């Protein structure tokens, strides 16, 4: 199976899982909810609504209803670009807003439910949004043709202006009303890519959200204020799996501004007139926790356990040839064991949500990433039919995977908090950074045990044992687990892009009572590091160049080889060095259908800490819809990945999270950010993801550079200040 097939099959699995969710808990979800689109009227009173995605108002504005959450990765701009392209709109007239939660109208075509993840926003919307734009265009043209009494085929559209050779011309707004009375055509032709004016054209589609976000005007969930709203914070158990045994709210209730204190399933909720009184109230609360069912192991114990397991037989996740036999006969086996800590997503805006209900119906507003599941959960908790619950998605202040919870823990807590105080008391649930960092849903702790054999300068055998937790297990996405293998635990490691005769990858899935979750680039966060460090180590032992050595192993991996060559050109690769105290390391990873290669230039800075000066990156993500957003996502992916391999760890001590704020959960700062140069490899393939694929290669690229500076490739992350 090629790498491409893997991503396709992953999508199919997700689709299956999605259908399952709806089938199990929300029959006819779509039909029940599709009223929401009518209730919701973005852009004010739009005169023309040709489909679920496009609204054209008399004032000429074109508003795209974006089914994906915008948390920085750019779907507002990206999906609006697709519509504008086919509509032949002027970019200046484009607007974007979140679509409401409605699984029928706004499903992610890769999942079967509404949601964002797996870097699929552009990929699954590419045709759908273009078709939405083309339909609107055809109807506007038809309306103009009728008004002008000319054949539709003689009308041209350019930058939001309809024109006829007779000299007649008009703007969209003028025909919006008339177009709204027409029947939408069943079939519309899409543009030949050669005629694209916006897609792939640098500088034509500046972000739609930059101004609001540069002036403090952009509204996030935490900014919601409504009359009589109460702010809620929840005291949660200090260890995962703990429960409230009893609590005493006497002192908490004395805090000025505290209105009520209630127990909810996740802990004890304090309701107040503002954030500070809520926090003070929580501080004054006395809670006795029942920790009989709590996870009490710490990272140290877990790692020891994982080490032991890695030396036993696991479930086979990938195999060809007979690696064990080659290893058993080899004179020399090269080994490495990599340990990856728990990591928090720590989105800049800690998770939060707003909910108002009156017993009959509810409105929830939050940075929802899996709207369909959040919607179902809120309806269920409140005992309402889903058609009585409206979910509005707000801008998310970052996510990195955290807002996409198969369990909807946030939506559930929000609804429980609203329910506990009763109807007609709007609530805004907020979390502090401490709540966020100690709240779980981490990138799981992983251990990789790698063994390899070299013969005559060639890698002849490769064996990997991977140990960690599965967050798909027990989730609505469980259907993705096949033959005991959770594919997102081994993606990137169960099949290599490198041709090695004898290969094996084993998986050990461990049950730990720590809630875990996908984290930007999911399995590739650890498999990318383990594989790319280990292949580099083997190539080094074999005396081969990191670039040429990889290329020689890539065989059929055309697109991956192309990005590797492209990045080598960009960086003027001339071996790893070091030169003048700076060495260069390579990392190349395919993830989410995109191919990314990076070269990092590294020296040893103060106190021997790695200092990353520059990163070159080449990406092939198919058709590059918004080149500047791709560059931005690569810059962000590299910074995010780098910050965590250098400094990020969420350690558990006897089950308790140790790092609780940014003073100890060290995050990359501006002085630690390398210079970045990005090359987007031209491609006419279908567009693929850019939000995540920038992350995986940077860690190994830095590690592989360190190996040329007389350091070992770090076996345990983070590279700086690791405490386990």
């Amino acid at each position: 199976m090629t790498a491409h097939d893997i991503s396709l099959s992953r999508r199919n699995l997700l689709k299956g899982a999605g259908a399952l969710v709806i089938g199990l808990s929300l029959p006819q979800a779509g039909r029940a909810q599709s009223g929401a689109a009518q209730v919701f009227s973005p852009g004010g009173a739009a005169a023309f609504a040709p489909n679920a995605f496009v609204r054209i108002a008399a004032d000429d504005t074109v508003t795209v209803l974006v089914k994906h959450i915008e948390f920085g990765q750019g779907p507002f701009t990206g999906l609006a670009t697709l519509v504008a392209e086919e509509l032949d709109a002027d970019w200046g007239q484009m607007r974007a807003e979140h679509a409401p939660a409605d699984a029928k109208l706004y499903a992610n075509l890769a999942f079967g439910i509404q949601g964002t993840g797996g870097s699929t926003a552009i990929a699954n919307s590419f045709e759908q949004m273009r078709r939405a734009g083309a339909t609107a265009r055809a109807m506007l043209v038809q309306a103009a043709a009728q008004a002008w009494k000319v054949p539709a085929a003689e009308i041209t559209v350019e930058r939001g202006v309809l024109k006829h050779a007779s000299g007649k011309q008009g703007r969209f707004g003028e025909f919006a009303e008339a177009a709204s009375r027409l029947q939408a055509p069943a079939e519309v032709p899409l543009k030949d890519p050669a005629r694209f004016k916006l897609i792939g054209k640098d500088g034509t589609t500046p972000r739609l959200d930059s101004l609001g976000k540069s002036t403090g005007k952009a509204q996030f969930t935490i900014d919601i204020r409504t009359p009589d709203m109460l702010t809620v914070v929840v005291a949660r158990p200090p260890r995962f799996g703990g429960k409230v045994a009893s609590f005493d709210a006497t002192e908490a209730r004395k805090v000025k501004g505290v209105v009520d204190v209630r127990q909810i399933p996740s802990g004890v909720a304090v309701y107040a007139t503002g954030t500070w009184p809520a926090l003070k109230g929580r501080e004054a609360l006395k809670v006795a926790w029942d920790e009989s069912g709590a996870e009490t192991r710490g990272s140290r114990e877990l790692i020891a356990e994982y080490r032991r397991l890695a030396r036993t037989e696991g479930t086979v996740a990938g195999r060809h040839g007979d690696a064990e036999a080659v290893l058993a006969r080899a004179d020399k086996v090269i080994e490495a064991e990599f340990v990856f800590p728990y990591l928090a997503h720590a989105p800049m805006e800690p998770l939060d949500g707003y909910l108002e209900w009156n017993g009959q119906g509810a409105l929830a507003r939050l940075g929802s990433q899996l709207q369909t599941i959040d919607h179902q959960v809120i309806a269920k908790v409140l005992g309402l039919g889903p058609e009585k619950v409206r979910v509005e998605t707000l801008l998310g202040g970052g996510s990195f995977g955290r807002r996409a919870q198969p369990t909807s823990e946030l939506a559930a807590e929000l609804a429980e908090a609203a329910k506990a105080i009763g109807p007609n008391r709007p609530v805004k649930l907020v979390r502090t950074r401490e709540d966020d960092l100690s709240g779980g849903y981490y990138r799981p702790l992983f251990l990789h045990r790698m063994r390899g054999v070299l013969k005559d300068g060639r890698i002849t055998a490769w064996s990997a044992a991977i140990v960690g937790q599965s967050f798909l297990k027990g989730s609505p996405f469980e259907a993705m687990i096949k033959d005991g293998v959770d594919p997102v635990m081994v993606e990137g490691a169960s099949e290599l892009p490198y041709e090695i005769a004898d290969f094996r990858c084993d998986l050990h899935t461990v049950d730990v009572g720590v809630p875990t979750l996908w984290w930007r680039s999911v399995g590739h966060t650890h498999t990318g590091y383990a594989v790319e460090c280990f292949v580099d180590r083997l190539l080094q032992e074999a005396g081969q160049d990191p670039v040429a050595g990889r290329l020689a192993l890539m065989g059929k991996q055309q697109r991956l080889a192309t990005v590797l060559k492209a990045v080598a050109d960009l960086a003027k690769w001339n071996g790893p060095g070091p030169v003048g105290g700076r060495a260069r390391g390579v990392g190349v990873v395919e993830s989410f259908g995109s191919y990314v290669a990076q070269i990092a230039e590294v020296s040893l800075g103060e106190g021997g800490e790695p200092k990353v000066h520059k990163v070159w990156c080449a990406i092939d993500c198919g058709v590059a819809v918004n080149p500047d957003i791709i560059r931005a996502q690569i810059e962000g992916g590299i910074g995010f990945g780098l910050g965590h391999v250098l400094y990020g760890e969420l350690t558990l001590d006897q089950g308790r999270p140790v790092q609780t704020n940014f003073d100890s959960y060290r995050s990359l700062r501006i002085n630690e950010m390398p210079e970045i140069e990005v090359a987007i490899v031209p491609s006419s393939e279908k567009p693929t993801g850019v939000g995540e694929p920038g992350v995986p290669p940077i860690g190994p690229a830095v590690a592989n550079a360190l190996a040329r500076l007389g350091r070992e490739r770090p076996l345990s992350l983070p590279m700086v200040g690791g405490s386990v």
Partner: protein
Amino acid sequence: MVHSINVNGTTHRVDVDDDTPLLWVLRDNLGLTGTKFGCGVAQCGACTVYMDGQPLRSCSLPVSAVGDARITTIEALAGKEAEAVQAAWVKHDVPQCGYCQSGQVMSAIALLKEIRKPTDRDIDLAMTGNLCRCTTYVRIRAAIHDAARTLEG
């Protein structure tokens, strides 16, 4: 207790506990939500405002300590440095999620008021207290240099 504070040129009276951080007074009492909460412990800079023109982490200053100082939030930015910085932010499409950017913009403007033509090192020093989890730092740096060029005329 009732506190009288000057925010964006207007005196406001707010009835909150003395230890209430200025941040929450701005956001919850005055509705000035452009100033963000990111950590509450002066580690991230999302809550940056000006106190008598100097950047300050409003999460870590109790309202009782504001006294007669003049507080300025992002809602009341004015002047050529502010214009240059915000224009550069838009031109470079700096924001991703955008949540940290109020604080970034506030710190960048304060830097340019202090140092007309900042070096990369000046930028590091002035901006290192502002975390961006989306790591938009490459563009923050480029936008500050660009704004400095605009101000040069």
